[in-house]
């Protein structure tokens, strides 16, 4: 299957998801009207700066946001079944069973006092009636599959006896142990060094092909998106800024915020270029403007930006920006002249 194949049927279907927290300073809308689909065997990238609500969106739909002041609305269907508002036990059997998760920092993601084998076995036995012996054998197989050398003895080692990259492999093995239909990876490479990052992405790509899981990968790195994703959701201040196939978004991005993100990726082939930064800071979720959330930092700001732009576009490439196609064409061509892709 080539990367550009469209999704056949949605494994995960999110409609108008909003997550807000009641705080002393007022209601914080961490996620505001997010909608997307993840098809079978599709890799969806969610990209945005820190605080753009990308992790909260995924955690909240799985019941991992355990804040008494949170309120979640919208609809999240997993294989056609509504999962918002499932009971704790139903959620538990789904988490780790049908949905696997990988986290940002492998150094702290494993319980320090148990062997990695024990921790994989724990998950296997929570979701099946495997015997301990069979589960250990399966754990050893999984470690071998994620490329941990000498898995027979490593299965009895403790997390602190592994390097960061190896620990992330263990976490991946654990997430895949129950053959989940969906894998959610929250910045899986951010805490790793560059060579290890490439290995982990490569591994995830390979495992995705063999296990056939769909993947949602959360990242702030457009490079990771270009590497692995089929489709991309660009988020800003809890709102989707742009959604589309990876090639379209990376090659012909439509939203000024995406232009900024793309400009912030260092490239080895262009030597004398300064990294482009987006001026200003990400908006505080307490003071999201009523209009376009990106407007205060946007250099193409217009009067109409005081109103919230709808998510619209042609085919499956949507964006929330008031710029007209002609304006974008002009801006993009002048940027190309300046040597910025």
């Amino acid at each position, binding site marked *: 299957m080539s990367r550009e194949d469209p999704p056949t049927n949605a494994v995960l279907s999110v409609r108008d998801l909003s997550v807000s927290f009641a705080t002393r300073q007022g209601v914080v809308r961490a996620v505001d009207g997010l909608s997307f689909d993840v098809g079978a065997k599709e890799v969806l990238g969610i990209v945005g700066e820190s605080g753009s609500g990308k992790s909260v969106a995924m955690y909240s739909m*799985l019941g*991992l946001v355990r804040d*008494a002041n949170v309120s979640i609305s919208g609809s999240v269907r997993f294989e056609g079944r509504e999962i918002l508002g499932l009971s*704790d*036990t139903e959620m*538990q*059997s*789904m*988490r*780790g*069973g049908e949905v*696997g*998760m990988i*986290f940002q*920092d492998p150094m*702290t*993601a*494993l*319980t*320090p*006092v148990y*062997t990695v084998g024990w921790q994989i076995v*724990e*998950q296997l036995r*929570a*979701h099946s009636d495997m015997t301990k012996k069979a589960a250990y054998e399966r754990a050893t197989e999984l470690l071998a599959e994620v490329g941990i050398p000498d898995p027979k003895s490593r299965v009895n080692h*403790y997390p*602190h*006896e592994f390097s960061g990259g190896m620990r992330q492999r263990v*976490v991946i093995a*654990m*997430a895949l142990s129950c053959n989940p239909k969906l894998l959610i990876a929250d910045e899986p490479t951010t805490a790793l060094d560059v060579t290890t990052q490439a290995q982990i992405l490569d591994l995830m790509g390979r495992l995705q092909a063999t296990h056939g899981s769909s993947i949602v990968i959360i990242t702030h790195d457009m490079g990771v998106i270009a590497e692995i994703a089929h489709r991309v959701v660009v988020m800003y201040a809890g709102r989707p800024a742009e959604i589309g196939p990876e090639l379209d978004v990376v090659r012909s991005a439509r939203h000024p915020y995406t232009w900024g993100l793309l400009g912030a990726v260092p490239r080895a082939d262009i030597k004398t270029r300064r990294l482009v930064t987006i001026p200003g800071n990400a908006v505080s979720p307490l003071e999201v403007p009523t209009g376009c959330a990106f407007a205060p930092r946007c250099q193409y700001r217009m009067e109409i930006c005081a109103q919230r732009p709808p998510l619209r576009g042609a085919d499956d490439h949507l964006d929330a920006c008031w710029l007209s196609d002609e304006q974008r064409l002009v801006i993009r061509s002048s940027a190309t002249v300046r040597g910025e892709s």
Partner: protein
Amino acid sequence: MLRFIVKRFSSAVLVMFTISVLVFLIFFATPGVNPASRIAGRSASPAVLRHVAKEFGLNRPLPIRYGLMMFHLFIKQDLTSYVNIGDKIIPQITAAAPITLSLIFGAVVIWLFVGISGGVIAAKNKGKFIDPLVMFFGIAAISIPVYWLGQMVLLVTQGGLHSSIFAWIPNGGYVSLTQNPWQWALHLLFPWLTLASLYAGIYARVLRGELINNMNEDYIRTARAKGLSERRILYRHALRCSLISIVSLFGLDVGVLVGGAALLTEVVFGLQGVGWLTYQGLQNLDLPLIMGCVMYGAFFVVLASAVVDVLYAYIDPRIRVVA
């Protein structure tokens, strides 16, 4: 693991030796003090002083004096008190030790049970009214001095109510475990509760803090993502990791308590344990007795810390590598 245990215990022996040398030097080589008159006690006759000087080799070099002292203390075990003339020190200590050990054993069981369940209940109900309630009882138990609490317990159980509600409580004293286990427990019940209350309070508060910290760790999120039940996450992951700090606290507490720090409880309840014995020695300036008690106390502190280190390595695999 075995190598770790052997290593840890051989270093404990070394520490014991060092302590014995230090204690010896403080007692017998302090400049400007005649050790003979110290050992012999107040207003001893010249004949006694000469006898003491000869027995402990006080006119011979320091290392020989040290050797003689240890010989009397551990090998011949005939170190005698000159205050209560003829009292052998070692038998006194070995008679007192079971009482102290009994007192501490029961208190340990109670405080671990109450402290750990208190901490778990408070952490589990964080934000509800039961959490500050448990913590209030914790801080109250910590703040009440043990001698006052002991006196109050005595007042209630042995006072006017002793003929009615508390008629089942013995009149105080001690019955050994081998003699009658039921009477042993009955005699020690209120001393146990009194001694345990302070530690139960401390442990509950420490454990609550540890649990709440650990519940915010990344690995708890991983455990949730694995689809484990909240119960399993709390007990098998968060509590298991929190026990590491409880064990280190426990080692120190048990060490000093067995070494004689249960003194106040022993004195209040008239239990003639090691703490009580040390108290007697100090009051009478009975140097050989103090020397014996200090060595005994040091021995248990060192032993307890070695046992705890091994336990520590058992529950926290990260320690084993360092060793």
